[in-house]
């Protein structure tokens, strides 16, 4: 009985190996001779094509409509707290974090206090970002008008 079991085990192992080996060799060559939709092998790490698709989900920042317009926010701001304890905007846009987060740095024009004194960081009167910078949206003008965006507004 014992010998029978051993033989069975050995047979099963041999069978499993012979079945699995071809699979392993197929997995290594992942294209299988087929063209992929992005024109690159499936294993390619270059994601330039897919990155472009992904960027379209949240659009690029809109241009300004007049030169002094505070730039619009190009992302949702739901549940982003701006309180005395914590300013979520500055979690990415402060000079300390902006580069790490690949975010726009807060302008140094925001470092001047009400008396015209230059500070090394955000002035208290500029603390509430969303008072001036609002999330962008595709809202159309309610009343037709002839206003032209100046060439300088970018």
């Amino acid at each position, binding site marked *: 009985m014992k010998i029978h079991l051993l033989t069975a085990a050995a047979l099963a192992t041999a069978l499993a190996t012979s079945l699995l080996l071809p699979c392993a060799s197929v997995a290594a060559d992942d294209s299988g001779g087929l063209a992929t939709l992005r024109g690159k092998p499936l294993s390619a790490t270059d994601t330039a094509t897919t990155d472009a698709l992904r960027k379209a*989900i949240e659009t690029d920042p809109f241009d300004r409509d007049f030169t002094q317009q505070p730039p619009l926010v190009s992302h949702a701001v739901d549940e982003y707290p701006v*309180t005395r304890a*914590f300013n979520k905007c500055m979690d990415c846009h402060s000079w300390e974090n902006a580069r790490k987060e690949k975010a726009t740095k807060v302008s140094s024009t925001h470092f001047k206090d009400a008396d015209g004194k230059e500070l090394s960081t*955000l002035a208290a009167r500029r603390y509430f970002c969303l008072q001036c910078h609002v999330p962008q949206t595709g809202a159309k003008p309610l009343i037709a008008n002839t206003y032209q965006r100046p060439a300088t507004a970018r």
Partner: protein
Amino acid sequence: MTNNHPPPARQWRRFVSRGIVIAFVAGIALTAIFNITLAWTNTEDFCLSCHEMKDYNYREYQNTTHYTNRSGVRAVCSDCHVPKEFLPKMWRKLRAANEVWHKLLGSIDTPEKFAEKRAKLAQSEWRRMKANDSQECRNCHEAASFDFSAQGYRAIQRHEEALSAGQTCIDCHKGIAHQLPPIAQGIGNTDPAAVPLEVFRPATEATEAAPE
């Protein structure tokens, strides 16, 4: 001599069999009581029976997506703050004895006292979630089930970076259901009790290696 009592051996057998039945029934009853108590202490009503929870934490949580959202799925207090696994749950329940003690002491029974303690309390919970790899987040939000194509492109990038750097949910997602304590953001907050930025945003190899 007439004896109505059964012989000692039979008496003993009856005693044992009765004992087994009683122990069995008592076991079922005690298990039921144990589980009902555990479940009851995990309900929102139980948490909110202390005014500290009801007046501060609960009000803040009511403004967040874990309380109200378009599909009405809710995560109540215990979903985030009590582990689902048996032993971690028991450990958390034991530690809650300390919270009962501080309730009796009145450690956070005014908004001012709570504000003063918030940084300490928040960091304790951040540490707990960091230690168990944000298990309570992952009970619902499993990274392996992320559909990256349905996320915003910033979220895609950040999630990919964080996951490959071995970061856990709580490393970034702090203060999502309650207000944050003061954070030393380097933008003029001079509060000495503020949480240091390196605690709030723990550095990873990926963020340190980012081009300066």
